[in-house]
């Protein structure tokens, strides 16, 4: 029994540290700034980081295959601009939303196709995707476009109260991330697709020789990430009720950082979406901590985020070293 628990702890060490650090950061925050003890602050994490959570989940799968997707932030920007302009031109939201999702899927699939068929490195291909999407956003509109659609307004402003927690609420769009999260847990652990993703990340050549559908899976993973980005873009445009090419600057890096903080290795094959959820929450907590402080200059925020990331990764890599020598 103790042997088993020890094994469990070792195998899930990185994930458990992530969770523990999140709790720790949150509790310390609560001690320092009593205002942070309000439950609403916790739910605000989901409201403020809705888009980040969604793209990070898509990014998790990409990174699990050993790839990377630098285009997510630009696709968010493109989605906000495109939907804002389409809505402005009178298209109904129920047409615009699916259209955006389709665009995201197609965009991701094309990038995945480049990566798979032309055997070009994901970093370069998705960098191209990033340039392209950002450029398209500017070509559609150089300035910010407001959304006046009623449906979007309703989605943006109607609070949903949390049962059993007095005075705590989220907005509908904040629920998209958690729902998507549940879906990806299922995908990652209970489907052939998910397991193939892990196999590819460990050793693509092996996965191919095992007769697994490597190409199809890789393209699907990028398509899924494209889907997530478009979804995040829709959430973003609802939250801010506008579209702009400059939105979500370097959010791809925040997403990568969140995924990595969640214990997923950039080399592929190790990690899971649960970690990513906590990675995003930690990211959000750090930002709110610095906001609660309020007196720090913006550069200290940056340095602080860098330093905390370092502490984080440091603790995690300790775990990996430990596991390697004992396993």
């Amino acid at each position: 029994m103790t042997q088993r628990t020890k094994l469990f702890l070792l195998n899930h060490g990185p994930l458990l540290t992530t969770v523990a650090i999140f709790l720790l950061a949150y509790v310390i925050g609560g001690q320092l700034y009593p205002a942070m003890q309000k439950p609403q602050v916790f739910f605000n994490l989901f409201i403020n980081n809705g888009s980040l959570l969604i793209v990070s989940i898509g990014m998790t799968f990409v990174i699990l295959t050993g790839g990377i997707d630098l285009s997510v932030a630009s696709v968010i920007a493109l989605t906000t601009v495109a939907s804002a302009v389409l809505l402005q031109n009178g298209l109904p939201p129920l047409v615009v939303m699916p259209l955006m999702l389709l665009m995201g899927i197609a965009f991701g699939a094309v990038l995945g196709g480049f990566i798979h068929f032309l055997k070009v490195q994901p970093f370069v291909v998705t960098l191209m995707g990033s340039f392209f999407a950002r450029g398209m956003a500017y070509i559609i509109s150089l300035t910010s476009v407001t959304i006046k659609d009623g449906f979007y307004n309703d989605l943006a402003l109607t609070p949903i109260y949390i049962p059993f927690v007095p005075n705590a609420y989220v907005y509908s769009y904040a629920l998209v991330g958690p729902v998507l999260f549940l879906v990806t847990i299922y995908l990652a652990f209970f489907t052939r697709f998910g397991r193939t993703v892990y196999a590819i990340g460990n050793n693509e050549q092996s996965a191919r020789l095992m007769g697994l559908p490597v190409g199809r899976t890789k393209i699907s993973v990028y398509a899924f990430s494209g889907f997530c980005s478009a979804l995040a873009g829709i959430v973003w445009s609802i939250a801010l009720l506008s579209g702009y090419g400059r939105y979500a600057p370097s959010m791809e890096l925040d997403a990568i950082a969140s995924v990595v903080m969640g214990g997923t290795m950039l080399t592929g094959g190790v990690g899971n979406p649960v970690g990513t959820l906590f990675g995003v929450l930690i990211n959000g907590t750090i930002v709110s901590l610095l906001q609660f402080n309020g007196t720090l200059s913006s550069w200290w925020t940056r340095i602080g985020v860098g330093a905390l990331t370092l502490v984080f990764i440091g603790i995690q890599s300790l775990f990996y070293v430990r596991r390697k020598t004992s396993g």
Partner: protein
Amino acid sequence: MTRQKLLARVRESRLFWPLTALAVILLFDALFAPGFFRIGIIDDPVYGPHLYGNLIDVLNNGAPLMLVSIGMTLVIATSGVDLSVGAVIAISAAMGAVLINPALGDRLITNDILTADTTNTPLPLIILADLAAGTLCGLWNGFLVSRARIQPMVATLILMVAGRGIAQLITNGQIMTIYYTPYFWFGNGFILGLPVSIYIVAGVALLAWVLVRKTALGLFIESTGVNARAAYYAGLDERNIKLLAYTFCGFTGAIAGLILSSYVHSSDANNIGANYELDAILAVVMGGTLMSGGRFSIVASIIGAMVIWAFTITMYTFGVPADALTAAKAVLVLLVILLYSEFSQRLLGRWSLRKGPSHDAAH
């Protein structure tokens, strides 16, 4: 037969693809932008007579990127990546600006003092401090990657995020304008009609080339990049090799920061050297170095950087607005992807094979 061999050698050479890409862009200019190649001589009141024109701009504006690409090449060859070069540029620029600032340590800050054409620190010291700051940043990255064993992209992400914060800290959040004329020489001066910056690039490239090709360092770097474990078993100190690569990359970033801040007469921690990390990676990839590490060519990466700037300047001459430039850049990357993919390489290989025998048969 010998001609075919020559063809094959040219094609296999690492310079072939970046040179092709450069040629394609220049050809495009020759066809559609008649004035592009015009080079004139101007007698500048400050810097004396020198050449000017688009091609000179490609060299001068591209110099910082070329420098960074040299460092990035070594890092990528060890199968790493350095996302922090933009931040290192900002730190080095901030160092320079602060040390020049004549109001430094002065109680009485008046506009006259601030904008005076003097420096607080002697120029050689400034250069030394710049280089030291950048090299230290590189050393830090190298330490994280080689000793703490943090994945390169994450390790350098830390400095990428924090670095611009540090630069702001150095300048106390100000955008600093530089008024000290001798400092401008690096980004604007000329020697024998050619920009100073290009001599600096040549010097650093030569230094790097001698280091990696006239000693065994190149072999060591490539072995480490392909299989670090095997390299360790073979008796290489792969950790110090990585450390060296990142440190050198920081060093080149520092020089780039010096030239850039000298060129624009200021240091803006948020914007100076923005996106240089991505452009540098792009340049290296164009030079044929795989991001998974291994074989590399410094010269090819430098040409890769030239391609990026030739393209950018071309777009400027066509009046493409800065915001839409990103979309145009996507097209450039697409071109690179298509040219470099295994698929097109194979196509070309088959084409030259088919040509080969018939050529032989004719004799």
